């Protein structure tokens, strides 16, 4: 059903008075140079650090109302640096991230709760290599020089998302657990 044009200003005023949409329409602007998405995989029990070079995040956060916080993270999967040129060239291929077919990994938050102090937990859905699974990550928020710094970590199982199929489907060589650390600096 189409709304009569005359109704729109009324709706807009209604939004302003409830305050909710105003808070939600206030995404922070991300400082990409200081933000990072890092991961640590274990190969033959050797921790190897990697990172994604390109990503974007929309974050709405108000420490007074953390439960109203929202976050969407979009990672350009082909921007992966897996720790060495050889590994980076390998993990974009079909058995791993298959970046040609799945160029984006997307996390959409569904809830944020306070864990006390500056600690919080975000839960939501991660879509990676065409699979969507629920995920939760604790994080902290610190205020520094007018910016907010979000620091968090979580461990996911790569095989849940079919990352590292076929001959790589052996967690003794490359561990199933991948630790992910994120830092978003925004204001």
């Amino acid at each position, binding site marked *: 059903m189409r709304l009569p044009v005359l109704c729109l200003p009324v709706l807009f005023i209604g939004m302003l008075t409830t305050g909710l949409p105003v808070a939600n329409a206030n995404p922070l602007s991300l400082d990409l140079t200081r933000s990072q998405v890092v991961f640590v995989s274990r*190969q*033959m*029990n*050797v*921790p*190897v*650090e990697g990172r994604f070079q390109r990503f974007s995040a929309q974050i709405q956060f108000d420490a007074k109302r953390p439960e109203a916080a929202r976050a969407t993270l979009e990672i350009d999967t082909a921007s992966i640096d897996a*720790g*060495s040129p*050889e*590994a980076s060239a*390998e993990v974009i291929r079909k058995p791993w991230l298959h970046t040609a077919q799945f160029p984006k990994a997307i996390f959409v938050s569904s809830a944020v709760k306070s864990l006390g102090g500056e600690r919080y937990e975000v839960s939501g859905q991660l879509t990676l290599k065409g699979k969507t699974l629920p995920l939760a990550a604790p994080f902290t928020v610190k205020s520094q020089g007018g910016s907010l710094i979000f620091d968090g970590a979580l461990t996911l199982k790569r095989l849940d998302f079919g990352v590292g199929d076929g*001959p*790589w489907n*052996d967690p003794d*060589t*490359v561990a199933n657990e991948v630790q992910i650390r994120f830092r978003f600096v925004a204001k």
Partner: protein
Amino acid sequence: MNSAAGYTRVAITLHWLIALAIFANLALGSLMTEMAISPQKLRLYSYHKWLGVSVFVLALARIAWRLTHPSPALPLGLRPWERMAASVSHALLYALTLAVPLSGWLFSSAKGFQTVWFGVLPIPDLLAKDALLADFLVAVHGNLNGLMVLVVTAHVAAALKHHFLARDPVLARMLPLVRRGG
């Protein structure tokens, strides 16, 4: 003590363990670098590093043993250049059994890969990840191995010469299963 006639069992055991590990690791090293990336390749790299660290530890033990247990004397009647060649090649072998694993460990660190001995004992990285330094250390590791192959070849040739041409006990006294007099 190593007697005038022969080496102690400890010296003989360390000698052959190190020899075996060096031959295995030279083969492993050339094989793994030729392979396309695969779980097998990652495993071989780890085995190569574990074995390399083992050579280093065994070499330290061997050198400590040698310092406290002098080697038996060289046979009489060797020409001065032969004596010189023996001591230089032995000194080089001791140096290389330490330097080759060290260069491998350093280059692995510079590549950003820590060495975890037998997948259990993490060895701290002396160097931070640095691609240029890693390329340099790869070359150092390769060249030291080239030198190792040359010196080992000379070492084996000299041992065979002592045994089959000079017919002296130089090789036999390092063999584990040969009955030694004295």
